[in-house]
């Protein structure tokens, strides 16, 4: 009897070990498309400064607020560093959160929907290229690929807003998000191989020799403009050189903490040294974290501070350290004397 039970148990064990090939076919309801996001923005010149008014939200809700937005832009009258405007009916002012240390002059909820579009007003103390801003909005707010100068013409209209001209931008897209970011080919022509998007720095104040294999992508405008970005491709993972110009060095501890934070959360090995370069003295830092590393060179100039930073996977940065040092040595400043 017990032997029979044993044989039965063995049979059941063996029966549980079968496997199918796993190929399957089934039907599923079609996915419900996510509502598109629409962005309407107006850029008004104000002497050396610029005012940006932006309305961003669900496409249908933005459409419902378009007239109110146009009226708001027309009502905007700069007065020095401030401005006056008339808030449309149904708009409610809310707190403007600071992002990267920059705060909007005002933020409004446009309408009373559960997730209403947000209207924001910014003043920026210097002019920046419209194409860069449009491309930043396309990537960050709409989940779209970059435009070139020709493409820009299709989304911008110059309209009289009060007594001045305003550049109105109107675009729609699927919105930012992880799933959409996974497709590197949105909007690309797959018939021709993609060329790296080369660009120019924001100004000619600094010059340098870009090492072979690196590609200068050019300047990026924004609240903190980047003078130039240089791509450093490598098998071990791409790194990037960023050149930034600031009015002052700022709080040293805060800067060091931020750079340490960029390379890891754990212990970060920090080396500091002073370089005597053809372009003058510079302070250099080497931050080695968990898997990431950065090399930073800081040039103190009479009128500004220049930061040159190589950031990327440790292996890539180690491989390109010599090239980075040659790059830093090659830096020249316009009109500078030793």
């Amino acid at each position: 009897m017990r032997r029979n039970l044993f044989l039965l148990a063995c049979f059941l064990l063996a029966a549980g070990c079968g496997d199918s090939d796993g190929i399957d076919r089934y039907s599923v309801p079609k996915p419900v498309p996510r509502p598109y996001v629409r962005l309407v923005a107006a850029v008004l010149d104000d002497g050396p400064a610029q005012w940006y008014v932006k309305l961003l939200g669900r496409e249908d809700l933005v459409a419902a607020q378009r007239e109110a937005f146009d009226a708001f832009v027309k009502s905007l009258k700069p007065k020095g560093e401030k401005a006056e405007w008339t808030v449309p009916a149904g708009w409610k002012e809310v707190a403007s959160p600071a992002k990267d240390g920059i705060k909007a002059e005002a933020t409004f909820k446009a309408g009373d929907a559960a997730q209403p579009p947000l209207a924001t007003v910014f003043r920026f103390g210097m002019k920046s290229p419209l194409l860069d801003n449009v491309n930043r909005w396309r990537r960050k707010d709409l989940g779209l690929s970059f435009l070139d100068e020709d493409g820009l013409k299709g989304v911008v209209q110059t309209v009289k807003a009060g007594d001045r001209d305003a550049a109105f931008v109107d675009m729609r897209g699927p919105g930012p998000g992880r799933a959409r970011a996974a497709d590197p080919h949105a909007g690309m022509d797959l018939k021709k191989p993609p060329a790296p998007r080369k660009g120019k720095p924001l100004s000619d104040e600094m010059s340098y020799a870009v090492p072979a294999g690196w590609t200068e992508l050019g300047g990026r405008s924004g609240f903190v403009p980047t003078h130039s970005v240089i791509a450093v491709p490598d098998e071990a993972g791409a790194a990037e050189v960023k050149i930034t110009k600031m009015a002052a060095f700022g709080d040293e501890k805060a800067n060091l903490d931020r750079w340490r934070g960029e390379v890891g959360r754990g212990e970060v090995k920090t080396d500091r040294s002073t370089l005597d370069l053809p372009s003058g003295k510079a302070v250099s830092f080497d931050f080695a974290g968990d898997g990431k590393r950065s090399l930073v060179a800081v040039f103190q100039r009479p009128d500004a501070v220049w930061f040159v930073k190589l950031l990327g996977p440790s292996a890539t940065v180690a491989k390109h350290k010599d090239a980075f040092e040659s790059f830093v040595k090659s830096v020249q400043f316009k009109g500078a004397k030793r």
Partner: protein
Amino acid sequence: MSITADPPLAPASAGGPTPGRKQKPGPLWQCLQAAASLRLTVVLFVLSFILVFLGTLAQIDYGIGTVTKGYFRSWVVFIPFQVFVQFLQKFFDLHPSWRVPGSFPFPAGLTLGFLLTINLLAAHAIRFKLSWRRSGIIVLHAGLLLLLAAEFITYAWAVEGKMVIEEDQSSNVVFHSSGMELAIVDPSGKEDEVAVVPARLMRPGKTIRDERLPFDLKVEEWYANHRTRAAEEGEKNLADQGFGRTEIAVRTKEVSGVASDQRPDYPALYATLLDKVTGKEMGTWLFSSRWKPQEVAVGGKKHQVSLRFKETRRPFTLTLLKFSFDRYPLTNKAYNFSSLVRLQDPGLGIDEEILIRMNEPLRHRGETFFQADWITEETDEFGNKKGKEIGTVLQVVRNPGWTLPYISCVVVSLGMLAHFGIVLADFLRKRGA
């Protein structure tokens, strides 16, 4: 643990010797005796210890999923000699340049579990007597069998996945990062027709033919983890169709089981598609699990083809009403994550709002939905979250055998208590006498 065994029972029926007469045991009886051997038990235990040690070493190079599958949920595993070198490099300062090629076969978890079960069952079939004096041992062994059964149930029926929902969106789809599949979607009808091929069939050189697929598939290359880069002009490229014409997949190391950042592996597949009727090649494609579906036209029909995490669907939907990420004041440190969801299950007549928080999961239809992660507007080049939170990630877990390890521990403990209690009582009785 020592196992006390009685002398083998004298077999009473065919195959065994008849009492009083010396007779050679039959082949079945001999097999049973061999299977019930205590020596075999010891050997199997030692092999199990070694397997656990080797499986731990393997996580230097491989992810926990790969090791679990390869070492513990397979019949045979090929152990690379290099793991021993790595062990010596780590603990005994062997030079890091040492490399030893090759591997050797070793019985994996399924083999050892199966043999241990057979060994235990056979021992009870021929050696152990049913008696009150042995009741502790029998209960203890029942607990061990329950533990083995629990692992088998987890292997066969446990489900683990993730549900990703953006705010104001609904979902009934669970993604399983432990399994990938090539999904071929025909969107031409009222509903999407989906055919899936699991990743375990993707062996380089193998041609997959199945009537449920709109085309046959010859696997050229399979990368367990990869990244992509732009193809340079004139560079040799396996793919001549789709996104792969401009992008090259580069094989990368799997995320190690001991890495501090446990991100999933992203596989890639180079496959040549073949016409089902003519057998003619339709070109070679690169399917990256980091990409959206690519369009493949077959017989005038356009199919969306992608390599994706295995998807399963539930008969109910969760709608994310609000995701909240509370931080300690004036810091960026997380205080609490929560998802306010609407659960709609027409089959059970449920339509209600539920708050899922850390340590307060939703339990529904035998599955548990834990608050696990969140998604943001974008990620930087290193995959770190950037920008506003726009959705939630719920960990979905179902394990019908999750209580069994606890029960088996209790049963084993009771068995040991009973056995030692009986032995102690015998000892005291004999001493008293």
